[in-house]
């Protein structure tokens, strides 16, 4: 059967073009790859190559014709034994192939889009009565979590700058080299972009890397690998392969290290589908959630805080203490107002609550623990009870975790609100070095106290 040669689209947006020149005449023999015509679009002149072999039977559009629609028949190619007289006049209005565009379903309004499925996240495990509680620093809890998971699974290894011989820039990996050796505790060069990619590649091959960033400030060099490679591969591969990897390290402001070493990335990573984002406050949460993160088959960004590393909390002495990712924890029950915070933001909230208690304001404090998936139901439930909400975090104020929560609460619990949601965040400035200015750039307890009083109209 004669083959119809169609006016091609040469860019994603092209709808018509000018057939500027024929390079073959009727009767010419063509083979695959031969340039048969030139087409002009609004952007460029492009060559049209033959895909099939044959003899040009008819040129249907004259050279120089403007406004030739994509997919219009422009020529007829004859196969062996066919002659030009076999060619029936092409049906003018019906292109041989329907453009794919017309096959796409009608816009969203007509085609119901499946609702985002809700993940069923279990609650925290019961801690048996009589379980010994051990005062542990966040630093030790993180180390213990990694060591326990490395004992449990030989595919788990840790890599990063100074994680092995130096025992960790912040001593989080202390002792791991001695127990697991250099094969599983891998010192890297100062190469964030490169070793993040190496980690993701190893994870795609089925290993379970823990990639330590000396701080998340340096992970900006590697953020392409975290987002474009780790977070998106499962989706782009149709579920064939993903990256079971943990990116962890200190995040946010430490003390007096200035603008380039003092940024909170909570909101950056929390926006990315395909990632889980954890930001614990207590040592118990740090341990239970890091163990969960290492076991999780998805990429997890685990945001720690240098100032919290040395703080001690009770950690239950259990063989295998694992906490669910995606579940907030009610740190303190209360009736009058809800504060939602996470990570080091909790320290401001806790101090503020002590002051507010004296004034008779009973605060419910929620520690989000996980920023993605975010446990909004727990927040909504609390707001329905208290009718008032304040959020507290150290990150920049625009597009913060607090503004996200405020939006969702406004959408899902509007009728329950007795006051506008107030969001306490860091100031909208790069972190200054001077001690007095640094203090001003961060949130403070007074601001939290004032915000709570404001939403309580006190």
């Amino acid at each position, binding site marked *: 059967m004669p083959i119809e040669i*169609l*006016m*091609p*689209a*040469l860019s*994603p947006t*092209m709808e018509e073009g000018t057939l500027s020149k024929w390079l073959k005449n009727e009767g010419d023999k063509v083979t*695959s*790859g031969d340039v048969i015509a030139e087409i002009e679009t609004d952007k*460029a002149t*492009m060559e*049209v*190559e033959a*895909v099939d072999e044959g003899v040009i039977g008819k040129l249907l559009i004259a050279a120089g014709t403007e406004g030739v629609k*994509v997919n219009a028949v422009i020529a007829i190619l004859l196969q062996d034994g066919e002659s030009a007289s076999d060619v029936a006049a092409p049906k003018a209005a019906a292109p041989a*192939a329907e*453009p*794919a565009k017309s*096959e796409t*379903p009608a816009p969203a309004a007509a085609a*119901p*889009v*499946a609702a*985002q*499925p809700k993940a069923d996240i279990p609650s925290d495990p019961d801690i048996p009565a009589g379980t010994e509680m051990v005062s542990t620093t966040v630093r030790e809890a993180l180390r213990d979590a990694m060591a326990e998971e490395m004992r449990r699974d030989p595919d788990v*290894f840790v890599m990063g700058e100074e994680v092995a011989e130096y025992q960790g820039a912040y001593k989080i990996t202390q002792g791991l080299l001695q127990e697991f050796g250099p094969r599983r505790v891998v010192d890297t*060069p100062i*190469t964030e*972009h*490169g*070793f*993040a*990619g*190496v*980690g*993701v*590649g*190893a994870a*795609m*091959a*089925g*290993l379970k890397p823990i990639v330590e960033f000396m701080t998340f400030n340096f992970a900006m060099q590697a953020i*392409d*690998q975290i987002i*474009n*490679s780790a977070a998106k*591969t*499962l*989706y*782009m*591969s*149709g*579920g*064939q*392969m*993903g990256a079971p990897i943990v990116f962890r390290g200190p995040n946010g402001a430490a003390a007096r290290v200035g603008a380039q070493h003092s940024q909170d990335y909570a909101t950056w990573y929390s926006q990315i*589908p*395909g990632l*889980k984002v954890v930001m614990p406050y207590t040592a118990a949460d740090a341990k239970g959630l890091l163990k969960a993160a290492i076991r999780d088959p*998805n990429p997890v960004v685990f945001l720690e805080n240098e100032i919290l590393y040395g703080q001690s909390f009770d950690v239950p002495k259990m063989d295998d203490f694992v906490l669910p990712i995606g579940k907030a924890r009610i740190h303190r029950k209360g009736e009058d107002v809800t504060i939602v915070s996470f990570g080091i933001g909790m320290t401001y909230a806790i101090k503020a609550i002590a002051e507010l208690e004296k004034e008779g304001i009973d605060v419910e404090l929620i520690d989000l623990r996980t920023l993605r998936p975010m446990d909004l139901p727990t927040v909504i439930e609390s707001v329905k009870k208290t009718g008032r909400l304040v959020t507290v975090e150290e990150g920049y104020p625009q597009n913060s975790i607090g503004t996200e929560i405020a939006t969702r609460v406004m959408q899902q619990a509007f009728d329950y609100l007795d006051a506008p949601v107030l969001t306490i965040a860091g100031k909208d400035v790069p972190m200054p070095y001077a001690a007095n200015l640094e203090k001003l750039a961060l949130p403070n307890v007074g601001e939290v106290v004032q915000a709570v009083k404001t939403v309580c109209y006190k």
Partner: protein
Amino acid sequence: MAPRKSASVSSRKTAAKPAKKEFTGSNIAEFDRDQDMKAYREMLLIRRFEEKAGQLYGMGFIGGFCHLYIGQEAVVVGMQMAQKEGDQVITAYRDHGHMLATGMEARGVMAELTGRRNGYSHGKGGSMHMFSKEKHFYGGHGIVGAQVSLGTGLAFANAYRGNDSVSVAYFGDGAANQGQVYESFNMAALWKLPIVYIIENNRYAMGTSTARATAQSNYSLRGSGFGIPGMQVDGMDVRAVKAAADEALEHCRSGKGPIILEMLTYRYRGHSMSDPAKYRSKDEVQKMRSEHDPIEQVKARLIEKGWATEDDLKAVDKDVRDIVADSADFAQSDPEPDVSELYTDILL
């Protein structure tokens, strides 16, 4: 194409040990009839597949970006002929040829190009993002250079597990200027990771010629600062590619660490479908096509040696055309993914 005067390894010149192996990149593998027929068929499959993909793009069945591999077929086919089961392959977005060479089905690849449900990624990846765990093909990556670090990670996993698989990471002369490539070179050399870095030098990074983009245009020397040996290979001759691949894979499998193969090759088409390729002359393209075409070289050899007749080769051509036509039919008739797929495969 005439390879530039075959470069020897720069590390060799400075190396203390005189016994170090020399890589010239100028060896030519002796192919028997079966190998030449196989190379012919595999390269032709890629060529015809890509021509069809170009056509379907023109008809609006394939959207977005579509980067064709036409002209470079000998590189991936020669490499694949030397690899063993278990060796991993990773590349950037000019990836259809690599997928077909690893044995992925034409139907699944073409249906992914048209964004249909039986595409390798169920229509959610597209031309630039396709994977096959079964065939050890790790993508299909849209960010220039990212696959080099990822491929190094695949090699890290091989070393970690102590198996003898080798990671084969492809990238172009454009990607060769990305920073993470050198971060990866350093780690791969430091840890002696089993990886073959293939620089497919097709002379143009999109529209920028190598002469305008690089201070050192001999890419096989790009690892010399890390002691990584390299060789320039005539990437238009599948036998030269195979010979270099044999050497390189043996180097990696024997625990000597990474190696670089600079494949001197050429793409006939534009960078993507919407590139008019005004940065080079028609004569340049035509000269490559008529004098160095990788498929024509094999064809001429098969005929000359009396290993195949024109009719034999026509039969192969028909076979290949049938596979491609079938894949195109399939890719146009296969339904789009179910709307429920929007929210699947985000997290496990």
